[in-house]
C-alpha cells in the first residue's frame, strides 16, 4: 500500500489534466445529454424538459433508422477492405522488395490529407475522371453512368475513398508488428519445411492477431463517425442512401435547427459506438487469453 502523501502527490499531478478533461469533455457531455431531454431549438434562448419525446421521435423517424443501416454498411466495408488492403501492403513491404521506403511514403501520403480535401478530390475522380476513362475505353454506356448517383453503390464508393485515405496508416501499424516477429522463428519454420503459405497463416498472422484486432477496433471507431465524405461528395444522397448518422445529426441540428432532437440522436449514436467497441474489446481480450 502506498503512503498517503505519495497518493496525494499523484493526485496533484493528475489534477490539471483531470480539470481540463472535466471542463472540455465531462461537462459538455452532461450538458448535451441534458439537452436531449428538452425541446431546445436553434437560437431560441429558452427551452423546457420534455422527457423521452426526442428519443421516441428519433426511433420513429424512418430516415434516422435508415442512417444506421447506411453507416453500418459503410463501416463494415471500410473496416474489412481497409484492413485487408493494409495487411497486404504491409506483407509486401515486409519482403526484400526494392524501394521499400519510397513505397511506404507513397502509401502513407493519402493519410496526411484532410478528409474534406479527399472528398473533393474523389468527387472529381468519380464524376469526371472515371466516366471519361470509361468513355475512352469504349465501355458500355451503363458503365459511364454516375457512380455517386447510383443509390445502390454510392455508400460503397464512399467506403473505397475512405480506404484509400487510411490504408497507409494501418499498413504502418501492421508493418511494425510484422517486423517485430523474430527472424529466427521464420528461419526455424523454413528448416522444418514450412512453405510461404504456412509461414503466413500459421506463424505471422497468429502472432500479429492482437494487432489485427486492435486495428479493427481503431478503424471501426474512426469509420463509424464518418461525416466529411458524404458531406462533400453526396450531401447524403441520392435518395438518402449515403446519409450517415453523423451527417443526419448535423442536418437535424443545423438545417432543421432541432437541437434537442439532434442531441438525442447523438446519444443514440454514442451508445451504438460504445456497444460495438465493447464487443470488439471483449473479442480482443478473449483472443489474447487464448494466445
Amino acid at each position, binding site marked *: 500500500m502506498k503512503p498517503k502523501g505519495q497518493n496525494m502527490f499523484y493526485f496533484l499531478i493528475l489534477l490539471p489534466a483531470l480539470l481540463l478533461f472535466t471542463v472540455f469533455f465531462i461537462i459538455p457531455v452532461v450538458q448535451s445529454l441534458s439537452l436531449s431531454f428538452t*425541446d431546445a*431549438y*436553434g*437560437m*431560441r*434562448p*429558452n427551452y*423546457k424538459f420534455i422527457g423521452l419525446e426526442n428519443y421516441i*421521435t428519433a426511433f420513429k423517424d*424512418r*430516415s434516422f433508422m435508415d442512417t444506421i443501416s447506411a453507416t453500418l454498411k459503410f463501416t463494415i466495408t471500410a473496416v474489412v477492405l481497409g484492413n485487408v488492403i493494409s495487411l497486404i501492403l504491409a506483407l509486401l513491404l515486409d519482403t526484400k522488395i526494392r524501394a521499400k521506403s519510397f513505397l511506404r511514403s507513397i502509401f502513407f501520403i493519402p493519410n496526411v490529407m484532410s478528409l474534406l480535401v479527399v472528398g473533393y478530390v474523389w*468527387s472529381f475522380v*468519380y*464524376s*469526371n475522371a472515371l*466516366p471519361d476513362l470509361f468513355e475512352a475505353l469504349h465501355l458500355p*454506356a451503363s458503365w*459511364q*453512368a*454516375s457512380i*455517386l*448517383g*447510383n*443509390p445502390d453503390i454510392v455508400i460503397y464508393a464512399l467506403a473505397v475513398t475512405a480506404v484509400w485515405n487510411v490504408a497507409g496508416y494501418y499498413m504502418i501499424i501492421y508493418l511494425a508488428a510484422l517486423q517485430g516477429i523474430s527472424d529466427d522463428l521464420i528461419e526455424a519454420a523454413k528448416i522444418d519445411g514450412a512453405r510461404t503459405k504456412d509461414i503466413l497463416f500459421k506463424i505471422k498472422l497468429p502472432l500479429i492477431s492482437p494487432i489485427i484486432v486492435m486495428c479493427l477496433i481503431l478503424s471501426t471507431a474512426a469509420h463509424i463517425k464518418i461525416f466529411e465524405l458524404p458531406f462533400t461528395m*453526396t*450531401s*447524403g*444522397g*441520392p*435518395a*438518402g*442512401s449515403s*446519409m450517415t448518422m453523423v451527417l443526419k445529426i448535423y*442536418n*437535424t441540428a*443545423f*438545417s*432543421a*435547427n*432541432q437541437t434537442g432532437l439532434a442531441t438525442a440522436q447523438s446519444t443514440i449514436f454514442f451508445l451504438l459506438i460504445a456497444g460495438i467497441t465493447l464487443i470488439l474489446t471483449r473479442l480482443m481480450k478473449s483472443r489474447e487469453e487464448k494466445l
Partner: protein
Amino acid sequence: MKKWLSALVVVMLSVTVLTACGGSNNAQSDNANNQGTDSKEKIKLEFLSLKQEQASQAAFKEIIKRFESANTNITVDLQSMNADQLKTTLRARAASDEMPDLVTWMKEIEPEYLLDLKGESYLSNLNAESIEAANAIYNDQVYAMPIDNGYIGFYYNKTVLADNNLEVPTTLTEMKQVVEALKAKGIPAFATGSKDLSVAYMPLIALFSETVFGRNPNWSAERDAGSVSIATDESWKLAFDLHKDYVYGYSDVNGSFNIGYDDANAMLAQGKAAFYGNGSWALEPIRQVGPDADIGLMAFPISDNPEESKLLVFPDTSLSIMKDSKNADAAKKFLEFVASQEAGEIWSENVKVSSTVNGVNVDYDPIAADINQYISSGQFTPYGDRVLRSVFTDKLWEDFSKYMLDRTDWDTLAKDLDAAWDRAKEVEASGQ
C-alpha cells in the same frame, strides 16, 4: 528571500492585470456612454454575411468603401460565410453574449435577437411591398431590410430553341412537345446538376411555389388549420411529378449526378441544354461563361392555362441589426446608406438583380424585361421555401431525391411530409 520576491512579482502582476481589465472596462463603459454623442469616436461594425458569391462580396465591399469614406469614424468589418457557419457562429455568440452588429437576415434567427426597424425614416427609400413580404413571418415588426428582389425560375437558351425551330412553351402541352423534340435530337432539355443536390432541388421550389402557393396563397394557413393536407392536395403531387418527369426526366439522366452547379450554369450558357431551373444568384455565373448568350427567364407552365404560370419573386438579400448591438446608431447609419440610390445601383449592377431601392432601375441584364413582365401582369408569387418552417423544409430537402429516383411512392412521401409539417408547427408553438 526568494519566496518574498516571488510573492512580490505575483502581486505586481495581479495588480497590472486587474488594472488593465479595469481600464478596458472603463473604456468600454465610456464608449457605451458616448455612443451617439461624440461623432468622431472610432466605431467598428461587425457585419456577418451569408452572401459568398464573388459578385455579392465585391458589391458589399464597394458599398462599405463608399460608406466609410463618407463616415470616417466608422469602419465595417465584413465576414462572409455560408448559412450553416453563420447559424453556428450566431449560436455561439448568443451563448457568450457577443453578438455582431449587423447580419444578413435568416429566418432561423429568433426575433428576440433582432432590432425592430419599424419607423426608421430610411425604410421609405425602399419598395414598401418588398419590406412587407420580407417580414411576412412576423406580426407587425420590421426585422429585415430587403435590398434586392430575387427569383427562382427557369432560364432558357433562346438560341437552342430557335436552332431547333421551337417556340418558348407557354402551356404544359407545348412544354411536352418541346422537350420531346429536343430529346429526339439528343439534346437534354434541362440542365439538372444533381452532383450538388441543392442545384437539383431549386427547380422543385419554383414548381411548388407555382402549383401550391400560386394557386392558393393561403395554403399554409389552411394547412395549419387542418382544412387541407399534402396527401389530399393534388398541387404538391403535381410539383413533385413535374420535377421528376420533366426537370429530371428530360435531363441527361445518366450523367446528372456528374453535373455540378458550375457545369449546369455552363450547360445553359453554352447551349448544351435548353432550360435550367435556378435562382437569381445563378445569373452572374451564367454570364461569366456566356456574357452574350441569348437567355430568357420563364415560369414553368404547370397546366394548359398560361395564366397559371407564376414566377417566384421574393425579397432576397436582407439586412438586420442585432438587438444587443452596442453600435446600433452607427449600424442604422450603415443601413441608411445601403438604402440609398448610390448603394442600390452598386448592388444591382454587381449582383445582377433588381434593387428594392425606389428609383434604382439598373439595366442589369436582358432577362430583367422577362421578370418585369411577370410582375406587371401579376403572374408571380412571393411564397417559396422562405416562408416555410425549417423542420418542414429540411424534410422536403431530405426526401425530394427519393421521389425523383423512384425510391419512394407518393403516398409514403406525402404522409412523411404531412407529419413533418405537423411537427414543424408543434416545434414553433413550443417556443411561443
